[in-house]
C-alpha cells in the first residue's frame, strides 16, 4: 500500500509557529490529512527532545509511534473515517549562517536521525557549537558541510537534505545567499547529498533542467508551521515501513518504492516570481532582465525568485528531463478550495466546518483530493467544491505567481462562475 510522508515540519518550539504543533496534535492532524509518516521537527530543542523521548516509542526500526496512553485520548477526536496509524521520524531543520568563498551564506538543511541515541549525540555536538535552546530551528554559525560532517560522525544512518533549495534568502541554491551548486556548498562531501527538497516555489520539471540535480532525488514536504498546513507537499512511498527502507528508496530514487511527490503549483509558492513585496511589484524573469534586475517602482534590485534563479543555473531547455525523473502530481489544500468557493478566509469557521464535514464523511484529506470518486463527494457537499476538486485534479486552475515572500493566488473558478448559495446549479 502506498503511503504519504511529510518529513519537514516545525514544532511549537520554533519561532513563529502555532501552539498546536505538539506531538499529540501532529498525531491527530496526520490522520486528518492522511499522512502515514511525519517528521517530528525540532529534535535539537532540549525540552521538545525530552518530550519526544517521553511520548514516543519505537514502532518499526527508526520510526516511532505515540505511546498508547497518549494516542487513546486523541483517537476520540479523530473521525472514524480518518483513523490510521501514524509514525514519526526524527527530524530537525538547521539554519546555517556563515561565510564561505567571501560571501555570506544562509542555508537551511534538514537533518534526520534513526534513533534517540543518534539524535542525542547530534544535540550534544551542536549544543557545544551554538545555542540550540532558544529556537526549534536553531541558527548556527556553522558551515553546512561541517554540519554534514558532524551528523555523519554520529552515524552513517543520519542524513542531511538541503531544504527548499531555491528560496532566495535561506537555501543552498538561493539567489541571495546560496551557492551555484551542491559541489560549491559541500565540496568533497557532495556525494553524501542524495536528496534535496524542492520547496513550495519549484516543481520537479523546473529542477530537471539542472543536470547537476540528475543524481539526487527530489523530495517534497510541507515545512508546516501550523497543523492545517501539513501535507501541502508530500512524498509517496510504497515500501516497507522503516527508516532504512524509506531512505534507501529515496537514495536510489527507486520508482518502485519511492513513487514520487505531491506538489504545490509552484506559482503559488512565496518566491516563484521576481519582485518587491513592499512595492507590490512582481514580474517574470524576462521582464526583470529587461529592467536590468531593478524594481520598476523603487529602482532597487528586485528579489530574484526561483523561476529566474533556475533559468540562470539551468543547462537544459524548458521541458528537458532526465531518465531518473520521478512522477509528481499537483494539488491544492482542501481548505483553500473550500475557501474559494465560499469566498471567505481560509481560517473562517465556515471553511473549517465544511472541511470537517468532508473528512468525517469521506475520509482523510489526501483521499478526498486525489482519489475519492467525484460522485461520492457531490453527495456530501456543495457541487462547487466537488467541481473545484475535479479541476484541481485536472490542473485546470489559474495562478497569479507569488514573489518576495508573498504567496501566489490560486483561482479555480472564473469571475463569471459566481457561487450563489441559492442557485448552486448555475455552474452547469
Amino acid at each position, binding site marked *: 500500500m502506498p503511503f504519504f510522508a511529510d518529513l519537514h515540519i516545525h514544532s511549537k518550539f520554533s519561532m513563529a*509557529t502555532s501552539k498546536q504543533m505538539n506531538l499529540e496534535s501532529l498525531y491527530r492532524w496526520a490522520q486528518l490529512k492522511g499522512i502515514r509518516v511525519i517528521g517530528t521537527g525540532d529534535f535539537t530543542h532540549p525540552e521538545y527532545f525530552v518530550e519526544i*523521548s517521553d511520548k514516543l516509542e519505537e514502532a518499526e526500526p527508526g520510526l516511532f509511534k505515540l505511546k498508547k496512553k497518549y494516542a487513546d485520548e486523541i483517537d476520540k477526536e479523530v473521525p472514524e473515517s480518518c483513523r490510521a496509524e501514524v509514525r514519526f521520524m526524527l527530524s530537525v531543520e538547521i539554519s546555517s549562517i556563515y561565510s564561505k568563498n567571501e560571501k555570506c551564506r544562509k542555508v537551511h538543511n534538514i537533518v534526520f536521525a534513526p534513533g534517540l541515541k543518534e539524535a*542525542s549525540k547530534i544535540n*550534544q555536538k551542536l549544543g557545544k557549537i*551554538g545555542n540550540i535552546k532558544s529556537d526549534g530551528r536553531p541558527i*548556527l554559525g556553522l558551515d553546512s558541510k561541517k554540519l554534514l560532517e558532524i551528523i555523519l560522525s554520529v552515524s552513517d544512518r543520519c542524513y542531511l537534505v538541503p531544504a527548499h533549495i531555491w528560496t532566495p534568502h535561506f537555501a543552498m541554491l538561493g539567489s541571495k545567499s546560496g551557492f551555484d551548486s551542491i559541489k560549491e556548498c559541500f565540496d568533497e562531501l557532495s556525494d553524501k547529498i542524495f536528496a534535496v527538497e524542492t520547496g513550495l516555489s519549484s516543481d520537479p520539471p523546473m529542477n530537471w533542467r539542472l543536470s547537476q540535480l540528475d543524481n539526487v532525488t527530489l523530495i517534497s514536504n510541507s515545512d508546516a508551521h501550523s497543523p*492545517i498546513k501539513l501535507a501541502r507537499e508530500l512524498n509517496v512511498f510504497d515500501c516497507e515501513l522503516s527508516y532504512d527502507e524509506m531512505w534507501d528508496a529515496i537514495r536510489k530514487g527507486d520508482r518502485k518504492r519511492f513513487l514520487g511527490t505531491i506538489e504545490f503549483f509552484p506559482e503559488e509558492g512565496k518566491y516563484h516570481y521576481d519582485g518587491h513585496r513592499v512595492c507590490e511589484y512582481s514580474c517574470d524573469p524576462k521582464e526583470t532582465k529587461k529592467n536590468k534586475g531593478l524594481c520598476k517602482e523603487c529602482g532597487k534590485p528586485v528579489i530574484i525568485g526561483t523561476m529566474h534563479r533556475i533559468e540562470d543555473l539551468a543547462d537544459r531547455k524548458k521541458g528537458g528531463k532526465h531518465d531518473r525523473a520521478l512522477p509528481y502530481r499537483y494539488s491544492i489544500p482542501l481548505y483553500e478550495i473550500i475557501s474559494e468557493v465560499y469566498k471567505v478566509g481560509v481560517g473562517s469557521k465556515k471553511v473549517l466546518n465544511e472541511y470537517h464535514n468532508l473528512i468525517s464523511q469521506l475520509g482523510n484529506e489526501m483521499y478526498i483530493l486525489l482519489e475519492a470518486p467525484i460522485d461520492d463527494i457531490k453527495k456530501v457537499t456543495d457541487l462547487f467544491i466537488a467541481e473545484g476538486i475535479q479541476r484541481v485534479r485536472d490542473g485546470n486552475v489559474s495562478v497569479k505567481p507569488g514573489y518576495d515572500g508573498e504567496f501566489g493566488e490560486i483561482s479555480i473558478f472564473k469571475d463569471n462562475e459566481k457561487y450563489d448559495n441559492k442557485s448552486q446549479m448555475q455552474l452547469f
Partner: protein
Amino acid sequence: MKSMTTSHKCNYSELLNEKQLEAVETLDGAMLIAAGPGSGKTRTIVYRTVYMINEQGIDPKEILLITFTKKAAIEMRERLSELLDSENLPFVGTFHSLCLTILRNYSFKIGIEKNFKIFDPTDQIELLQEILKGAKKKSLQDLLKRISKLKNDFVAPLNAPFDLQEVYRDYQGALKAKNAVDFDDLIVKTVRLLEKHSEVLEILPFKYISVDEYQDTNKAQYKLVKLLAKRNGNICAIGDSDQAIYAFRGANVENFLKFGEDFKNMKLIKLDKNYRSTPQIIKASEKVIEKNEKRMQGDLCAAGEDGPLISVCEANNDYAEMDYITQTIDLKMGGLSRQSKELKQIEDVNEVRKFSDFAVLFRTHLQGRVLEEAFLRKGIPYQIVGAIPFYDRAEVKDLLSYLRCIYDPNDENSMKRVIRKFAKGVGETTIEKIKNYSIVYEIPFYQACLELDTISLTNDVKKSLGNFIKSHENFRNFVVENKLSDLIKFVCEKITYFEIYKDKRRQDNVFELIGYSLQFDDLPPYEGLKAFIDETAMMQDKDMYDQSKNVVTLMTLHASKGLEFPIVFISGVDDGLIPYEFDEGINEEEERRLFYVGMTRAEKELHLIYAKERNWFGEKTEMKKSRFLNDIPSDLVQEKFQERAIREKKKEVADEQESMF
C-alpha cells in the same frame, strides 16, 4: 653558502615602522615602550625577541618574557614558534608561572617544602570555611579579596586591620599546615626569596627581561620586576597608561608612570600609530581619554582608511537598547530569518559579515545576563565570556551529584552536596555529626547515614534524613529495571526538581542534560549510568573567549582588553554604569580608561548606546547619558534613537481557528 637559518632572516625595516624598529633594536638598558591600542605591540615584542636571538646571537635561555595572562603567553609562544626554533624558545609566561618555576627549585631556602600544593580560589574558600565554620560563601569571597590585597601590599597579619588579623593569621597558618601556597603567595614568596637570597638571583639565567601590560602590575609584581632587573639592568616594560584598568585588583598605574624614576637613563619609545581602527574611532577615543591627567601616551593617530561615524544611540529603555543591538546585527547580516524585518527592507548589505565580527561590551556582569536573554529570544548565536560553564551550573551540578550518589553511595562529596541541597532542614552541623560518627566507627559516610538512630540528632532531622535515604534507596532500585533517561526523569519528578529550579533557563539546561543521557539508554542500567557520569566528568567547556567560534561575543569591558572586532557595541553608556558609581564613589580616571579600552576594540564600526530608563536591581531607574559621551566631538557622531519595538506577535498562524476542531 650561509646556513639554513638565513631563510628565516627578516627584513626588519620592511616589517616594522620606524619606532617599532627602534624598539626592536634597543636591547641594553631600560626601555619603556608606551604602546597605544592597535599599535603593533605584540608584533614589536615578537620581532624584538627574534632579533635578539637571530641577529645578536643571544641564548634564548637568557630571555624572559612576562605576559599578563596565560592566554597571552600561549599566543606569544605560538607566534614565536613560527619564526624561531620551537624547541628552543625563551621563557614566556605569566608572573605566576615564572614564580612557580623559581619556587619549585628554591622554596626550601625560605622554609617551604619543595612539593608544595597550589590552592586555587575554590580551595581557598574551602580552607576559609574550615576556619570560619558556617560563614556564607559570599562573605568568604570578600574576605579573601581583602586578604589578597594585604598580601600583595606586603602587610603582615600583625599589621592588618583589626577585624582581619586573626583570620588572616589562621589562614596563613592553615596554608602552611597543608603545605600549600595560594596564587598571591607565589609572587610574594618569590620576592621574599630573592630579597633574602641574592645568590638565587645570580643563578637565574635571565639577562633580558620584558614585561607586558606593565601598567597593570601590582606592588608585589612591581617589586619582583625591580629585583629581576637589578642584575644587569636590561629591562623592557611595555604598556599603555591609558589602558590601566585593574586598580580594583591592586594594580597601580603609577608603576608605569614612574618607570623613569626607577630606571634612570631609560629610553622612552611611543608607538602611536594605530593599525586597527578607523580615524573616526581613534579621534573619538582620543578625545575621551585626553581628559585624564595620569597618562603618558601621546596622540594616537590612525593609519587606516576613513569609516562611518560613531553611532550614538539613545534608547527609550533597556529593552529598546537590546532591540537596537539585535536589530543592527540582524540588518548587518542581511536578515537572519524570514521573520526579520530586515528582509523586508530590501537593502543590499555590502560587507560580508559573520557572527564573530560582532562584540557587545558592557560594564557589569548583570547587564550581560539581560543581554543574553535578548540574544536567546532572537536566536542569535552568541558566547558570553565569563559566564558559568554548563557543567558548573547549579542545576546541572546538583543533578549530576545526585546521579553520582545513586551510582555510588560512597561518593562522599556528592552525597554531602546532595544532602545539603535536598534533605530539608539538614545543615553543616548534622553532616559533621554524621561524619564524626563515620570516623569513630570507621565506616563509610553513607553507612553512617543508615545508622541514624544511633546518632544524636533531633527528630525532625532524623525524619528528614530518613526520607532522603528512603527515596535514595528507591532510586537505586529503579536503576536496575529502567533506562538511564527514565531514571533521570524519575529523579527529577520525585525530588520536585522543577519546583526547586523554577527559572525557565535553568530548566532548559536540565532538559539538555536529560537529552544527552538518551545516548546511554541502550546500555545495561548501571553501565549506562557509569558511562554518563564519566562522560560528563570529562566535559569541560571554557568560559574564555573562543576565537574559533562563529558567534557574537558578549563580554565585560574588562574582558575585552587585547581583543579586536570589526563591529563593537558598548551597551549601557549611562552615568552610573560608565563611569561606574561604587558605594565609595567614582574612580573617574580608571573608568575613563575602561571606556577607552572598549572604544578602541572596534576596527570599523562603533556603536555606543545609552538608555533613558533601565531596570536596575529590580527597579525602574531614570538614567542619564554618560558624561564621557560629551567629550566626543559632535562631528564624529551620528545620533540615533530607538524606541521599544512592539513585541512581535506570532504571525502567519491560524491558532484560533484550529482550536475549533
